[in-house]
């Protein structure tokens, strides 16, 4: 196994091509739950876990069912189905097995079903024909990148609560400006690792 490539995949997916700040994906959750630190942390944990599992599961389905049957053109719809089923079953299982965990993280699961990052990752994995481990690493990196974005944003927005922002810009507008400025800062990471990743994402999105 090529650990170097795995490491690069994680760094590239989390920092250099951070989905939120360089591709502007997954913004609905990003702005929706970053108002409070507590919800942001809960969302980050749930999101990263779901991301890794869905990347693995969709890889198995893609490589062992869709490729042999030659139905790869259906991948968008199949992946949506897999993710929805996965999230729904996780929701049900968590409710039965660990109600306390469900109370903490369960509310985020419904939001994750329709997130675009969670669909983008299996699509990129399929398109770049990553191995099973690489797919999971890419999922983990994307999840961590999203978690990082969410936590930074939550800490800034909590600070902005007390700021004297002009009325038309209160709430969402200033959050969008903040997101844009963080994205500007994240351009500093560009060119850090020049590998397949950059090509991959620009080809797929």
């Amino acid at each position, binding site marked *: 196994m090529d650990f170097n490539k795995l490491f690069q995949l994680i760094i590239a997916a989390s920092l250099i091509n951070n989905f939120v700040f360089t591709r502007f994906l997954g913004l609905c959750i990003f702005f929706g739950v970053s108002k409070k630190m507590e919800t942001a942390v809960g969302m980050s944990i749930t999101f990263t876990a779901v991301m890794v599992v869905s990347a693995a599961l969709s890889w198995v389905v893609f490589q062992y069912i869709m490729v042999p049957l030659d139905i790869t053109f259906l991948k968008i719809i199949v992946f949506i189905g897999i993710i929805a089923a996965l999230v729904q079953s996780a929701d049900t299982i968590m409710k039965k097995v660990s109600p306390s965990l469900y109370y903490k993280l369960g509310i985020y699961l419904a939001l994750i079903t329709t997130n675009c990052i969670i669909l983008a990752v299996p699509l990129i994995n399929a398109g770049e024909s990553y191995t099973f481990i690489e797919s999971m690493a890419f999922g983990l990196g994307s999840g961590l990148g999203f978690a990082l974005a969410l936590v930074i944003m939550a800490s800034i927005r909590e*600070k902005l609560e007390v*700021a004297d*922002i*002009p009325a038309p810009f209160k709430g969402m507008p200033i959050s969008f*400006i903040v997101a844009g400025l963080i994205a500007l*800062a994240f*351009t*500093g*990471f560009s060119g850090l690792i020049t590998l397949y990743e950059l090509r991959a994402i620009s080809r797929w999105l």
Partner: protein
Amino acid sequence: MAKETKEKQLVVSVSPHVRDEESIAKIMWSVNFALFPALIASFYYFGPRAMIVTLLSIVSSIGFEYAYQKFVGKKTTINDGSAFLTGLLIGMNLPPQLPFYIPVMGSFVAVVLVKQLFGGLGYNIFNPALVGRAFLLVTWPKLMTTWKEPSAAFVGLDAKTTATPLGILKEEGISKLLEEFGTKNDLYISLLTGHRAGSLGETSAIFLIIGGLYLLYKRYITWHIPVSFVGSVAVIAWIFGGKGALFTGDPLIHLMSGGLMLGAFFMATDYVTCPSIRKGQIIFGIGCGALTMLIRLKGGFPEGVMFAILLMNCFAPLIDRGVKPKLFGEVKAVKK
């Protein structure tokens, strides 16, 4: 107006009632003053063009602040020196050969977008001058990286364009750098005095250090951020800066080139955008240093000070949360 004075008379501030001459305006003007030696050196090296660029960014910064505050009906605060400082820092962060609309655009982004929309001085999350420059860099990458060779400026008319020392170091290595500057000592002296290509205010390390020491002496900044920032850059440059083997890098080149001195003393130490707790400030400084060296050695840009400070600005509220001291007797709330 009358209402405001009445409020002022009625409001009693909390103790301790320290009587002191310090005010925002006084600190801001002192920082401006501390930047002057480096500014004058830049005029000497880069000529009247540098003067015009700096002047334009200062005037437009103050102008935008005034116009915005008039427009929304706020009290104008252009006398407190903060808009002047933003403009001055933007000017000092630009290459000298620029079309005149560029500093004005940078000032607009810095003052209106980054400072006033967040509520004015004291509320901005990012350093306005740095965002202004980052905006200009990603918008006009070619113009913003065309450097001019310093000449005894008032005489020489055709400016020769060249790369910055860090750019040469990154693209062609140390041997090429020595070829340009002569011996290693000549290189150090050029870097220290500022006889090199670069943004107009960042080149003369010695004058920036003098300005920084003045601020330290006046206690307007504390040693935590500059020392941890510069120190971590030096250590990382020493360990990883060399070709091949570890511990063979030359920290002095990395310390004196690029915008490190300007960034460490004047921009990372911005009260508003750095953590307010000492321990957090040290983490902030080390983070700035590490990211600077990461970008310089591995990244796509030859210089990383600006992006490093901006990235750490993003993390500053998070650092403050992390190092917040525990209240005496505080226990974690038990959830049922």
